[in-house]
């Protein structure tokens, strides 16, 4: 009795949803935008599931007659990149090999730089920060040649540690920026308390600050995973033959001169390559927004 009563009153009190013209316009606009961005993805997906004869019929928008995953298998394991015919799988594992350590090293160094800049203010810290930020605006092209020379001198050119170092260096400005901004929003008294409690430079960082950094760590991971995974130029130049990342491998498959163009295989390979950043966005979009808000540019 009471139940029904309360539910009926609550439904009575509920404000009527008013769908105004403005709302409809906004939704319409958003739908059109998403269609615009989803269309290429749709084409990649359906083409990868078609057979070559079907593709040759020329209707790229049409739904595949039968779902055919042969192209996916071929793209993953037997498609040819020049002389080797091992698909993009080699590139996938190379990219993982580059990604994991680069991710760890670049985020940690960025976090520590940000930590130093917001808590261990030394003489010239502002200038130092300015220089790091300036680094973010120098075009890659201007740096590549001198970096090749330097890396070659130290025997790092074309090696895995080399490409990891390159990603760390290029990621450092933005990583430092977001961590510095995040740490400057935390109350400095926590830092002081930890110092009085006897925590040293790394003690404060690992015991106190890092556990408080989850939101900004998520932002950093998303930025770096997508950045490093999507990288083509640096991997091509600094990775060496052994460590060609997936993007480079994809390019080699697509541009492979031999035989007729296998659009379905190319599309499947493209999709496979895009899968990692896609999944990252898909599962962390909400966190990303939250983290960006938490580390909002300040100070």
């Amino acid at each position, binding site marked *: 009795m009471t139940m029904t009563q309360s539910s009926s009153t609550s439904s009575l009190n509920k404000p009527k949803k008013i769908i105004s013209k403005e709302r409809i316009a906004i939704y319409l606009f958003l739908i059109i935008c998403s269609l615009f961005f989803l269309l290429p993805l749709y084409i990649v997906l359906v083409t990868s599931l078609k057979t070559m004869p079907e593709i040759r019929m020329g209707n790229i928008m049409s739904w595949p007659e039968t779902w055919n995953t042969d192209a996916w298998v071929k793209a993953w394991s037997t498609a040819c990149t020049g002389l080797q015919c091992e698909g993009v799988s080699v590139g996938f594992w190379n990219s993982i090999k580059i990604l994991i350590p680069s991710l760890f090293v670049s985020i940690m160094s960025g976090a520590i730089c940000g930590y130093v800049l917001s808590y261990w203010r030394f003489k010239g810290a502002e200038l130092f920060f300015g220089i790091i930020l300036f680094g973010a605006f120098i075009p890659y092209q201007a740096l590549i040649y001198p970096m090749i020379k330097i890396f070659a001198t130290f025997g790092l050119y074309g090696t895995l540690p080399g490409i990891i170092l390159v990603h760390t260096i290029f990621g450092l400005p933005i990583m430092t920026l977001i961590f510095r901004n995040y740490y400057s929003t935390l*109350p400095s*008294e*926590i830092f*002081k*308390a*930890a*110092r*009085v*409690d*006897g*925590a040293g430079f790394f*003690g404060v960082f690992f*015991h*106190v600050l890092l*556990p*408080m950094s989850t939101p900004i760590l998520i932002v950093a991971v998303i930025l770096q995973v997508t950045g490093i995974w999507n990288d083509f130029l640096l991997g091509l130049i600094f990775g060496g033959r052994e460590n060609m990342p997936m993007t480079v491998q994809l390019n080699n498959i697509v541009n492979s001169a031999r035989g007729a163009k296998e659009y379905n295989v190319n599309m499947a390979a493209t999709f496979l390559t895009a899968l990692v950043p896609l999944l990252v966005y898909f599962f962390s979009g909400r966190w990303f927004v939250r983290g960006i808000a938490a580390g909002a540019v300040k100070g």
Partner: protein
Amino acid sequence: MQNNTNTAHVSAKDLSVSFGKVDVLKKLNLEINKGEFLVLLGASGCGKSTLLNIFAGLQEATDGEVWIDDRNVTYMEPKDRGIAMVFQSYALYPKMTVRGNLSFGLKMNKTPKDKINELVDYAARVLQIENLLDRKPGELSGGQRQRVAIGRALVRKADVFLFDEPLSNLDAKLRSELRVELKRLHEELGATMIYVTHDQVEALTLADRIAVMKAGVIQQLGTPDEIYKEPATRYVAQFVGMPSMNFVTGKIINTSGGTYFENGDIKISIDEYVSKQPLRDGQTVELGIRPEHVVLDVEGFNTFNVDIIEKLGSELIVWGKVGSTSLTLRAEPESSVASKEIRKLSFKSSGLNFFDPETGLRL
């Protein structure tokens, strides 16, 4: 713990701090005795926190030294100074439980596990936070958080405790409760405590001695009684006391019949006032007199136009004027004074203070 005899003498020697062109502390000297409860009192921005941070080793002085007992600790790390600190914003580690917060410092200096538990349990018992040990700071009220923050200082078994406005974020009732508890804690521990506040009630109730600061300089160092009864400067006089002291500018008049203070509206005999230097005839001075030393008195010589009356329960605060001179006075709650009344009043000669209007120094 019962056998705690940790305590130390602290001294600041010619401490100066500047940020660029701004001098925050100016050649400050301060000796704090073993086991003393010293309160640094001053308005916002006068450099109290800066001084405390320098004692703690969290900030570097531009010049000068800090000594704890016979050690020059000026360049020593905070953890090596034998200090503990409680902050205004509690500054608890948000991702650790209360137990984690209390034991963090002990873990850092590699105290054995059972000793840590013993100390944490002791602090939790003293501060009555035993039932909160497994909670995170986010799940505590403001008062509970501040207790944890005090507990975190307590387990360190420091010689010197530094408090930076620890109660200012709490409501009035909690503040007075914790104030009493801090006082008791000090008596039990016997440790030296340096306590920053801009709340004069806290200062007067807690302190063995108060150092009143203004713009990086200590204006007066003395017991609460001395600060209240014999303020060394006009600034100290108006800063301490609620409601504030009355100030009246006037002249000294020396006659064969005695010495008087006069400003056109009031004339007070000041023969009983013990001045540091002789008051000259015709000298312009500023009279300071607390509201409790201005009394309604049917035999008084001054005609007082009552303006407003504030009823505070235990007393009345009466605002009004003698001629064009504004005065505030304290009265008994049962006294029959009403607003817009005309009364007579007199001044208690024991409550007179005179200041130099130029320098602000006590005469």
